[in-house]
């Protein structure tokens, strides 16, 4: 491969306090590629995303985003156009309106009003319901709508790599479908995604490649086709 991957991680170890939650992780996401990180609870998937964002105190190894080494950068520098996250539990700013949540996502672009308007229009194009609710407090939204705001806030910073942490969790089947379609639409627009999931069906619908993670290590890498053509049993072995 001559082209540089959007996200490249090598021998990453990260954790909280004295021991590492993830050990010696290596993965890459190419430009315009969508990659899933599958695994059971406590496998360290979220920790990998947090390490990319610089939210984990102890991290060693190489993390490159679009050629920039971010392994020593503070979180707020990484968040300025390199990576953005739609975190677990959504973590919206609940005492603020939908539009304010979105605009806060574009914090580092605040002097570029035209670009913010373009981004805002693209988020509303992706989730028309948010436009209708834009003045509403985000705490008054349903879970699915809150997830849309979280994804929208992530898009607003126009990042090189988008990190999604279990966007399907605790949502109704209809809302899951909307989120999946949104991710497919993002792919069409050329976005690079790293998706953490527990739901294999969601991951196989969206992604080009899947990493399987257990006990803090990546144990396998496969294609969605492999899983569809009976690889489910391999996966179940890992996921327990």
């Amino acid at each position, binding site marked *: 491969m001559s082209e540089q991957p959007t996200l490249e991680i090598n021998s990453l170890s990260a954790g909280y306090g004295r021991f590492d939650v993830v050990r010696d992780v290596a993965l890459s996401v190419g430009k315009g590629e969508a990659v899933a990180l599958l695994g059971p609870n406590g496998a360290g998937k979220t920790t990998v995303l947090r390490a990319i964002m610089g939210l984990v105190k102890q991290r060693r190894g190489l993390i490159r985003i679009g050629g920039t080494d971010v392994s020593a950068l503070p979180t707020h520098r990484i968040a300025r156009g390199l990576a953005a996250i739609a975190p677990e539990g959504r973590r919206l700013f609940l005492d603020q309106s939908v539009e304010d949540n979105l605009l*806060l996502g574009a914090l580092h672009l605040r002097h570029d009003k035209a670009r913010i308007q373009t981004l805002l229009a693209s988020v509303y194009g992706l989730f028309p319901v948010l436009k209708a609710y834009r003045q509403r407090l985000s705490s*008054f939204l349903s879970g699915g709508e809150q997830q849309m705001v979280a994804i929208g806030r992530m898009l607003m910073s126009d990042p090189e790599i988008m990190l999604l942490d279990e966007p399907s969790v605790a949502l109704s089947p209809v809302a899951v479908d909307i989120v999946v379609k949104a991710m497919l639409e993002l792919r069409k627009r050329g976005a690079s995604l790293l998706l953490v999931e527990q739901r294999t069906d969601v991951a196989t619908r969206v992604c080009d490649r899947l990493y399987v993670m257990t006990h803090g290590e990546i144990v396998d890498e496969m294609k969605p086709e492999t899983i569809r053509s009976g690889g489910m049993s391999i996966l179940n072995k890992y996921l327990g």
Partner: protein
Amino acid sequence: MLQFVLSGVAIGSIYGMIGMALAISFYVTRIINFAQGQLMMVTVMVTAELASSGYPIWLAALAGLACSCIVGILSYVIAVRPILLSNRFSFGWLVSTLGFAVIVENAAAYIWGPTSQAFPPILNGISLPIGGAVLTAQQLLAIVTAAVLAAGFEIVRRYTLFGKLGMATAADPEMASAIGANTTVVAIVAFAVSAVYAGVAGLLIGPSTFANPYLGDTFGTYGFIAMMIGGGTERPIAAMFGGLLLGVCAEGANALINSQASDWFPFIVLVLILIVSPKGLFSTSNPLFRPRRAAVTRG
């Protein structure tokens, strides 16, 4: 009756400004700066010193506020940040900000001596009769300034990007940094703004109390009471309401019980209010007081 209400509102707006100062830094960083009263004192002392050496009063006041700002930022950098860096959930700042207060206070006493010095009268000479009562122009200025500062804070918080960023940092500092906010800078700005609020309160009370290095103790305590009875920990402007209530209670006790009653009566009010409504009277989480909260509609 009217007299003590009016002078209570005047002194209460001073307490309210200090309460808001405490509440602003607490709102954003979840840290009580126990050196807040001392930040007010720094403005008073510097202004008095410069005014007595012949500088114009407005210049002296600006320099005083600037000094408070610097000391306020130092209180964060020296007394708070190192502790939060080693452990984000530590309560070490309880002691370290108190220690910082003692250092600032004693440094001031060392520089200017422990006794009171003259403070330039701003508008104390003029008095305005209102109904059957009298208010000095100085007191009126305090009330107006407090209203402007309280309203200004709310406007900035709700309608500017920086205010919204402050709210975001208050609600979820980690997520705020994940959208690109430098939370250290936000915290430093919050401490600087709170120092200005305390300093302005000092400028407005200075003509009545004179410049004394131990001024911060009493006013810091009253500001704290104002914040607690108002519920400023959740909503900084509530500290202003708390301050006004406190001022009227203290002046009322002086007028109706005896001239020393303002030393103990506010504490009884504080205890009673905290028993009835532990979150403070005007906070959003007080079930008795919920402004602009529409019925929850889930769509």
